[in-house]
Every structure is written in C-alpha cells, then in structure tokens.
C-alpha cells in the first residue's frame, strides 16, 4: 500500500464535500492510504497574498511544517491550494528575505521547515504514480463515450504546474482512459474568475460564461474539473449566469474523481454526485 499525506483544504470540508468523498472513495479502491496533515490551516488562496505578502507565505508554510518529512508526498486536490503551497516552496528557495522571514517567525513558535515534502496535485499523482495502464485495468464500467470537455483551470498548470500551461493534456488522457469521449476545448486552462465572483461578479460571470458557452458549442454533456473553486463557480452560479447571458442548456460540472469512481464501479451516492447543483442524472443516464 502506497501512503501519501493529504491536504484537503477548506472547501473539501464544506462546499466541495462531494470532491472529498470521491477522492477518498477512489483512492481507497486503488489501495492508496491518505494521511491528513494534522491541524492544517487555510492556504490563504488569492486573498491573503493580496493583502500581505509575508502572511501569504506563512499560511502555506505552516502546513508544510506540520506535514511529516517521511510520510510521502503531500497530495493536494484543490488547484488554488496546490499553487499556494508550491509557490511558497519556490519563494523560499528563490528569495532570501522570504526564507529568512519565515524561518525567523517559525523559530519563535516552535515550527520548523526541515525536510519539506514534495507538493503534488492529486491529478499529478494519479497520472504519474498510478498511471493510465493501471487506471484502465480498474475500469469495470466504461464511460461509454459520454461527451465531456476537460477543464483544468488555471492554477493547476500556472505558474508552477505540472502540465502544459496553455494546452494541458493529463486530464484529457485520464478521461479517455475511462472511456469518455473528450471533445476539443480551447478553454481548458482559461480562468473561471473564482477570486472575483463575490466582489466583482460582472467580471467573473463573463469568464464562466465563455467556458460554459464553448463547452455547449462543442457538444459537451458535462464539464470535468480538478478544483473545488472551479466547480463551485461553474456549478452553483450557472443558473444566474445563464439567465444573465440568455443561455439555454444546463451543464453538469463533475470532479474527475467522481467519473473515475463511476468507471471503477462505485455508486453515485458514494461519490457525492447527487450534491451537484446542476444535476448529472441525465448526462450519466447512458452509463446507468
């Protein structure tokens, strides 16, 4: 059994409970053990870095300090948390003032940053450590050419991501391995505007609309995502946005782990699929 450390991030305990359920279900099936980082805290997302750069390093750095040195890589399911954690590691190496600032503050509170674990997105781990061959082996119920577009979002691939920042491939490949029909989609790594949706909805709504509108135009039956922020934005606000831009046709927004779970024979409720604001029932009809 391979073991990893797990940093769920705040959303997975609330608005993205379905993601958490499907992550745990799928990894359980794959006999992968996840150990949650003890007493983890919020990564600060895009808010803390906007207000105070040092605090923006401190928040993710505390999680890295709390993670164990030798209990495996740190697996992160949320694009925004993934980027925050990776960025602080990058900054600590690149900038002396940040490194010294963090170390100094931590030394006053009994935290230490020796032997930071490698930070990896859940999708990255599945693609690299498990591999498509193994995933295909695990498929008991193929997705029967259900038409999807894969939407990686921005912070999975930029600025420190593991896939091509302009034309990411991993999610496409994984979905194909499950038997889905992946449609060409130019919005793959465009931003959904999650950080602006509350304060400047007029900007974010337009961004979400471009993504959904192209997905509809290419004939997608669902949009597959890797991030709870993207999911919330595209799913929960979809009704409001469709009204505003006069669009018809609802698109279910589903986590890649949920489709993995289905293909591996798990039930919809085990995977939290019923929690989508836009229902997936119709889109998933043909795979039963």
């Amino acid at each position, binding site marked *: 059994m391979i073991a990893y450390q797990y940093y769920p991030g705040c959303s997975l305990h609330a608005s993205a409970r379905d993601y958490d359920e499907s992550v745990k279900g799928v990894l359980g099936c794959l006999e992968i053990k996840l150990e949650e980082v003890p007493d983890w805290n919020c990564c600060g997302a895009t808010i803390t870095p906007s207000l105070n750069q040092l605090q923006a390093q401190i928040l993710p750095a505390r999680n890295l300090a709390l993670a164990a040195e030798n209990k495996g890589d740190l697996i992160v399911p949320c694009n925004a948390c993934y980027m925050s954690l990776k960025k602080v590691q990058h900054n600590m190496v690149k900038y002396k003032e940040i490194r010294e600032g963090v170390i100094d503050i931590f030394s006053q509170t009994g935290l230490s940053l020796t032997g930071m674990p490698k930070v990896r997105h859940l999708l990255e781990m599945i693609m690299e450590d498990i591999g498509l061959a193994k995933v295909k082996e695990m498929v008991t119920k193929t997705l029967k050419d259900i038409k999807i577009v894969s939407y990686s979002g921005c912070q999975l691939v930029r600025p420190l991501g593991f896939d091509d920042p302009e034309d990411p491939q991993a999610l496409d490949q994984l979905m194909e391995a499950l038997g889905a029909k992946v449609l*060409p989609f130019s919005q793959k790594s465009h931003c959904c505007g999650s950080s602006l949706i509350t304060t400047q909805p007029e900007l974010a709504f337009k961004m979400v609309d471009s993504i959904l509108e192209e997905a509809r135009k290419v004939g997608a039956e669902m949009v597959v995502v890797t991030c709870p922020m993207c999911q919330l934005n595209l799913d929960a606000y979809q009704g409001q946005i469709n009204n505003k831009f006069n669009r018809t046709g609802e698109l279910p927004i589903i986590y890649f782990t949920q489709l993995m779970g289905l293909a591996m024979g798990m039930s919809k409720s085990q995977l939290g699929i019923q929690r989508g604001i836009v229902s997936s029932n119709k889109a998933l009809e043909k795979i039963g």
Partner: protein
Amino acid sequence: MSDHKIGVYVCHCGSNINGVVNCAKVTEEIGKLGEVVVAKDYKYMCSDPGQEMIKNDIREKGLDRVVVAACSPRMHEPTFRRALEGAGLNGYLLEMANIREHVSWVTKDKEEATKKALSLVKGAVKRVKLHEPIEEREVPVTNTTLVLGGGISGIQAALQVAEAGHKVYLIEQKQYIGGNMAKFDKTFPTLDCAACILTPKMVDVGQSPNIELYTSSEVIKVDGYVGNFTVTVREKPRYINHDKCTGCGDCASACIMKNRIPHEFDEGLSKRSAAYIPFPQAVPLKAVIDDENCLLLTRKKCTLACVKACGAKAINFNQHETIHEFKVGSIILATGFDLFDAKRSPQYGYGKYPNVINGLQFERMTNASGPTSGHITLADGTEPKSVAVIHCVGSRDENYNKYCSRVCCMSSVKFAHLVKDHCDAEVYEFYIDMRTFGKGYEEFYNRVQEEGVHFIRGKGAEVAQKDGRLVVKAEDTLLGQYREIPVDMVILNTALEPRVDAEKVAQTLGISRSGDGFFMESHIKLDPVTTTTDGIYLAGCCQSPKDIPDSVAQGSAAAAQSLAIIATGKVKISPISASIDSEQCAGCQICIGLCTYRAIKLNEETLRAEINEAVCKGCGTCAAGCPSGAIKVSHFNDDQLLAQIEGVLA
C-alpha cells in the same frame, strides 16, 4: 642567468581602462620591479605612436622582453607581436596582461581595480622572463573548397569560388538546391519574383564545370586543418539513375502513392507521390524516390508502376549509399535555419485551426507554381475577407528565443502587400516594434501603410475561435485597449532557429555555437565570417537570422576568405602546440578523448599517443589531463604558468 631587460607598457584604452584603473600608479609601481628597465603608460597603445614607442625602446634600450597591459590578447596580441618583430625581437617574447575585460569592464571599484591590474601585470613580468622565441610555421594549401548547404548563401559562395577558377564541392542535404528561398514567391523590398532571381543561379551551379554538386548528401567526418582538410560525405541513394532521368515526371504520375504524402516543399499544403520531382525548377531536375514512403522499399510489395512508366529506364532500386572523400583547403558552412514550430505556442492554435498558417506556408500559397496556383485560400477553398499577421512568434521571447529574427517585420509587411494584391482582404499586422532597417525597407513599409493595411502595435497574445471565425486577442498599445479582432486567416510569422542538427554539425566540424545556438563567428563585428577554427567560414542563416541581401553578402565574403587562402598558397599555423614525450607516455589514450580538435592519434605500432602539430590549437586540455605528465604545451609550460601565478600572488 643574466638579467633581462623588460619593458612594460600600460594602455589607457581611452577611458575604457583609465576610467577605472589608475594606469599611472600601476606604471609607477611596476617600474620599481627589478629587471623592468622601462615602464610607460599611454592613451592608445595599439595606435601607431604607441607601437612606435615600444619599437624605439626595444632598439634604444635593448629590451629583450615586453609586457603590454591592455585589452584581451584575442584582440591585439598579433598587433604587438608584429611591433616586436618590427624592432627585431621575436614576437613570442611578449606577454599581455588583460586589464580591460578582466579588470576595468567588470568592476566599478577603482581601488580594487588598480590593485588587481597591478597583480596581473606583476604576473606577466614574472612570466615573460621565461618566454622563449618561437618561429611560426607555414604549410601549403589545397586549392579546392567545400561548401556545405545549397541555399542562396551557399550557392553564392560556390559560384564565386568557381568563377575564380577553383574547384568547389557543393554538398546539400535535400534532393535539390535553392533552400528556403526557392519556396518564396516575391522578395522584399522590390517584390522581384524569387524564382526569377534564384533559378538562374541554380542553373549556373548545375552547369559550372568547377562545381561538383552532391544532393541528398551530408558530411559525416572532417579531418585535417586549414589548407588541408579531408572531408567524408555520405550520399544517400535516390533510386534514380541521374544520367538517364530526364525529369519528365512520368514516374510521379504513375506512382500508386500519388497524392498521399504531404509535400515538404509545399510545407504540407499539397500531397505528392513516393516517386516525385521536388519542384518544377529543381536543380538537379531529376526524380527521387522517398524511401520512407515507397511501398517497394518499405514493404517490399508494389506494382512497380513507376518502373513501367519510366521510358528512360532510370529507376534503380538497387542503389546504395555512396561514401565520398574530398581534399579541400577550406570549408564554407551555409546550412541555413529551421522555422520555429508554432505548435510550441499552443495559444496561437497552429495545428488546431486549419486557417492558422505559418509564413512559409503563406509563401507557398502565393507562389504561382504552389499548391493553390498562387491563390490565397482558406481551408474551404474560399478567399479570406480579413487576414491577421502576427509578428515575433517564437522570437524576442524568453520562453523560446531571445533574439530578434530580423526578417519577420519585412516579410510580414510583404505578406500584407501580397494579400492586398491577391484578394483585397483587410489585413491586420500585430507587431511589437516595426524593424525595417535595410536599404529600401522603410520606404516599402510606408508604401504598404498607404495600401490600407491596419498596423496594430501590440503582440498578438492568443488566437481563439468564436462563432466560426478566428479571433486575435491583443492589446492595441497605442490605444491602451484590449481588442479582439475577428479574421478569417492568421499568418504566424515564426522565428528562424538554428537547424535541428546544428550541434551534430558543430561537433563534426569542430566549431563552436553561440548562446542562441547559431554557429559562432570569430568576432561578432570585425570577423563575422570566420569560425573559431581556421579555414572554416560561415555564410547565411547558420550564423544568425538574416535576409537575402545579407545572406548573399556573407556568401560572397566567405568565398573571398576561401579564395584568399588559395591565392596565398600557404597558411601560417600557430606555433603554440602540445608535444608528447613518448618515453613518458603510457598509451592510456585519455588525451585522445579530451582533444576537441582531433589532433591526437594513437600510433598503432608504438602504442603511444602522437600529436599532429598542424591540427593542434595549443589549448592545453591534453596536458592538463595527462596522468603521467607526458604532454607539454609550448609557450604555456608549467614553469611559465607557475611563475605567472607567483607574480600575481606576490
């Protein structure tokens, strides 16, 4: 040992050195050293009065050693050696201390600089005492030239050497000569048709009695040294008997692979057969059989329709590759460039949207003998109503190539003109800076502006598809606004890059590449044609991106270099070389692997290493690597180097 009489000369180099180093103080201090009989500083030591000063002191004060503290010896060591020789002293009794590149240009701290300069000069003084007179050697040269690459600059060089009455071997990797220029339709700024000006030169190459042309060929080995190279060339089989083939093209029409293979010459815009004529004006105008797609050669199964169709009985499937060996005095490298693959910037949709094309594809499209017979058409066969041209794709970009590719602004402006000329569509040029620096170039830009082309100052950031049309996203920086411009066709003007095999070629020829990957010239301003290896010259885009006028000029310049060697009949070889004490050599062959210039060989009889002094550059790598200390380098022996170090540290 008797005392030496040393003269030390400290150069100000205007303010280049003296602005940082206190030259007067260095001179004063050094004058206090024993055996230094004269120490002087002067504004420009390399000038006539400067050299005269040294010569006079040698004559009048009887100097037997000279130290010049100035710029890098790469620049002026030969100058000062000549000065010494002018006054009757052997040129190798000179030592230079580099107090410009190594001191004044790399620090602002005047005190530290002066201290370091003084140390370096002290080292030079210590060292020069141990210098010995060395005589330069001369070797005769072979009066033939090898030109590698048959594009416009290689053609120019080959023709010029041939016209001067000397033999040229022209080696071309493709099946035809003409290079990229053969694909163009019109050329800027005068809009002459490329074929009209290039074809006569290609024909001249084919007909010149002094040029031996080898197509489908590549250089696999180069031995020897300036004046006396031996070059090994591999010629791949074309499966066509050149003497019999008439270039009629009947084989191509008959081939059962007809219209099934993307045609390289048309940049994939048309399909060809496996047996084909590269293009109607090709030199040599002979068919070729593509062994990667010919059914007989790949699957051993074919109806042999080509053989039946060939009236001249020219097809021969039993051809094998041929190895040729040529003795040449010099080599001209004109291997050209590769076009940046726009798929590396996925944001532009190249390879995804059929109406996003690159510059060479557009050239083929506008060419009357091209895949669309000169019509600018979209994938569905209709004419575009609006076209965008995006500059700097893969150029001026840290993510790909930092350099400016130099030809794209002008070719983009030419594309705009050709669109207007062929189909009167709206044209939008997305540029960062408009660089139209050549003769007649700005005037051409001006003319195209007046033709009604929209010039938008801002780099095209992304090409998307919206409602069935392409959309270019960019900031109109002069307006300060984000804009989305819908168009039917996008031409990506992509960077000129070093050829994919540049490293292999550099290793085969023993030459260097600069940071951008192109072959490196000896001096970027004063010797842009010579490589760091004597007798190997550069022409055209293999040295850096350049347009046709510059490629032709450099081709001529390289030819002049070759002809100069031939005219002299002999070449001077640097006398600084390594030598092996065969008593001490253990035959371990470590030095053979270390030598970049392939100057060392194992004597199969004695099992000791031997150095070819004519090839040896005196770099000293072998001497440093020799475990038994059997190798010595003249002018850089251990005693001299230790004395220099001692002087610096004193």
